[in-house]
């Protein structure tokens, strides 16, 4: 960045924090030693506190960005007011619906964002359910633009989680575990944020009847094999912890298999 005299960066907010840490360990201050002046950050939820931390540590203006792969990736960002993300109404029609009933909700009401593309070719989308929960504001923004804004994404309508900017569905993990006879079907996903700012996903699984365990390497190899399979399916590296059968929580009704200990 120093050499290329980069002025703007785009990445996940947690990665930006990681970069600032890493840079200072190298003796580089992003604030004073680079030409960075702005960043657009998204692909995972982040808070106002994180925005302030990024802006202070890196000496930049930090803007929220939103999009989905189906829509063409990151498409919509905040203006200088940093008060909601402007949706380009000439190209995209947005709605909010109740994720349970599908009923259309009004402005200011929390619900699932639904998008229709108006000019996209090859892969147009009509009332595409994003699964993201947010609120629409159509009042004119202080910047002067009349494009409606969506406020910070508040969560998901489904059980999808985001790890280091990558979407992960617990059912994908379940599918991998079912193919491994040495482990059972119960699992827990624990999400933490490391000191360096990056997400750490730990998957706990129970040994099954079929597991042959005599050497320490038997377990370590099993954990490694599971981690490799998960990586190839999810595109995210997970720590695997094998535990005794019957140790993990059992659920009546819907299983809550994710423990998210991250503070954003």
């Amino acid at each position, binding site marked *: 960045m120093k050499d290329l005299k980069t002025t703007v960066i785009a990445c996940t907010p947690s990665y930006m924090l990681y970069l600032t840490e890493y840079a200072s360990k190298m003796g580089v201050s992003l604030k004073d030693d680079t030409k960075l002046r702005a960043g657009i950050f998204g692909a995972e939820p982040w808070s106002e506190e994180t925005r302030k931390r990024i802006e202070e540590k890196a000496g930049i203006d930090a803007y929220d960005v939103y999009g989905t792969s189906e829509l063409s990736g990151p498409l919509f960002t905040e203006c200088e007011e940093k008060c909601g993300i402007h949706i380009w109404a000439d190209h995209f029609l947005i709605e909010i619906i109740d994720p349970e009933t599908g009923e259309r909700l009004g402005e200011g009401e929390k619900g699932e964002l639904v998008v229709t593309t108006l000019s996209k070719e090859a892969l147009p989308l009509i009332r595409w359910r994003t699964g993201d929960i947010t609120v629409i504001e159509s009042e004119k923004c202080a910047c002067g633009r009349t494009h409606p804004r969506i406020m910070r994404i508040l969560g998901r309508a489904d059980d999808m989680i985001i790890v280091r900017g990558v979407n992960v569905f617990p059912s994908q993990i379940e599918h991998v575990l079912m193919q491994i006879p040495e482990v059972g079907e119960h699992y827990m996903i624990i999400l933490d944020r490391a000191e360096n700012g990056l997400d750490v996903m730990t998957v706990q699984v129970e040994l099954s009847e079929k*597991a042959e*365990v*005599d*050497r320490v390497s038997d*377990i*370590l190899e099993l954990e490694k094999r599971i981690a490799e399979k998960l990586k190839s399916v999810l595109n995210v590296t997970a720590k695997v912890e094998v*535990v*005794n*059968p019957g140790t993990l929580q059992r659920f009546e009704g819907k299983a809550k298999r994710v423990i998210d200990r991250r503070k954003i």
Partner: protein
Amino acid sequence: MLEDYVIRQLSVFVENKPGRLAAVTEILYKEKINIKAFTIAEAGDFGIIRMVVDRTDDAYRCLKDAGFTVTLTRVLGVEVEDEPGGLYRIAKALGEQGINIEYVYAFTYGGDKALIILRVDDLEKAAEILESRGMLYKG
């Protein structure tokens, strides 16, 4: 013939937390199982208990019924005099012939004897070598 020298060892997976060892040994105690050799291989979050007991099948069954992950492994048992050199002679004999010892542990008993438990990569060959050297075996 080989089977005379093979011991069926129990391995139990346990998490590295307080109370786990007590939980396993309590089950054995209640079933009146006597432990003849015992060791734990620890690896951070978990450990593997390995033991040789007097009633292997009973121990296997009651530990499994209690929900533990138990495995039976065929290992060699060598009985030696309880004096210096016992383990050295075995290790030398096997090493010279290219046999790899995965793990070893030993127990002394009877005042003048020691039992050495070995898991090796080639059970048959190791038994042959030790027998040909006239080393004492445990049945």
